[in-house]
């Protein structure tokens, strides 16, 4: 069982990272409710791992890894859904989307989704880490358990893949 110090450290990590993990999940699954579910499940899984006496060197990296694994599991379950269906389930169907700003935001997210869902999962993951989570190559390297150099190379490749997918104007 976790001692009180560890519990407080875990709750502190939760307070600091819950929003970021939720945002990361949102920009991977594009649904508020599913992102909330995934955020909750991430922390439960990490807690369970800690409470079993396992040690975690970089808690933040481990939390991101766990969230990513859950996202991949979820996307496997939903792989039968077509792109069209994914695009139809727009955030606009969720609560509090009635002001002009909300509508603009929904359109923006839908635009992003159109491009992102067409990319391979690794590219999506890297772009989200870099541009949504604002993580640097060092932090991304910790999550992916690779060297910072390798992380930089992969980010650069992800950008090339993105570029190739964007319509040429």
């Amino acid at each position, binding site marked *: 069982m*976790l001692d009180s110090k560890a519990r407080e450290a875990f709750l502190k990590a939760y307070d600091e990272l819950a929003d970021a993990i939720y945002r990361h999940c949102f920009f991977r699954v594009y649904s508020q409710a599913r992102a909330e579910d995934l955020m909750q499940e991430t922390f439960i899984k990490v807690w369970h791992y800690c409470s079993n006496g396992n040690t975690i060197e970089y808690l933040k990296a481990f939390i991101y890894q766990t969230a990513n694994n859950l996202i991949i599991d979820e996307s496997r379950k939903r792989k039968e859904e077509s792109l069209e269906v994914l695009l139809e389930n727009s955030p606009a169907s969720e609560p509090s989307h009635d002001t002009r700003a909300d509508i603009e935001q929904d359109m923006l997210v839908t635009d992003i989704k159109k491009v992102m869902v067409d990319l391979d999962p690794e590219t999506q993951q890297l772009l989200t880490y870099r541009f949504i989570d604002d993580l640097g190559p060092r932090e991304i390297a910790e999550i992916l358990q690779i060297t910072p150099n390798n992380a930089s190379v992969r980010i650069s490749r992800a950008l090339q893949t993105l570029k190739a997918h964007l319509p040429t104007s």
Partner: protein
Amino acid sequence: MEQFLFKLKKAKEGNPPLRAEIKQEVRTELRRFFDKSEVVRVAPVTHHSIHSRLRTLFLRPMPIVLALALILSGGATAAARHAEPGDFLYPIKVNVIEQARAGLSFSTEAKAQWEEHRAEERLKEAAELETKGELNAENRTDIEGRFNSHVARVRDLVAELRAKGNTQAALSVESALEASIQRHLDLKVDVRAEAEHGNEVRQAAHELRDNIRDSLKGLGELRLDIQTDDRDDSDE
């Protein structure tokens, strides 16, 4: 590409944050889980203490995260996951583990998928009991009652999904349930085993099949309704 990255940044900044009540709710559950984590130690079951442990479990309100520990922890919980009607741990499987898992889904779609899975699980249990020659009027009634309530819950959740305009998800859950039922009806009856098991098993198996055949009929009508919704949406 610069334009896309700019959009990404803008979307990130403008996106609604995690709802404060959800953040608080999960935090409270985590804290409660820490405080009560000794209850989780119910996993290594010993026979002399099981009754008092179970009483404690059933009488307390089950916080989601605490219940999740039961799902994730080993020992009795792992055994309970494979329990069949009539087994000592079966009530843990259906009333605690599955119920807790149901509480872990916030979205209507996730809830509906889980209820569909539970309905399928009941049918698998029935098939297993039938194969072993252990299906009887009592466990058939138990399975049937639970199966019917899962189907009713799926129908409610499907109605919710339709009301929200999520026709594809409604159709996907409904079709999965229909497929599970059809799979059960398609199971080949082992004639020799049936003869060995005697009348009671045969009778129970046939009654169960009749019941689920009725459910299938009702679901078929529901599917047609949803498909009509879907077509109407496409026309618009």
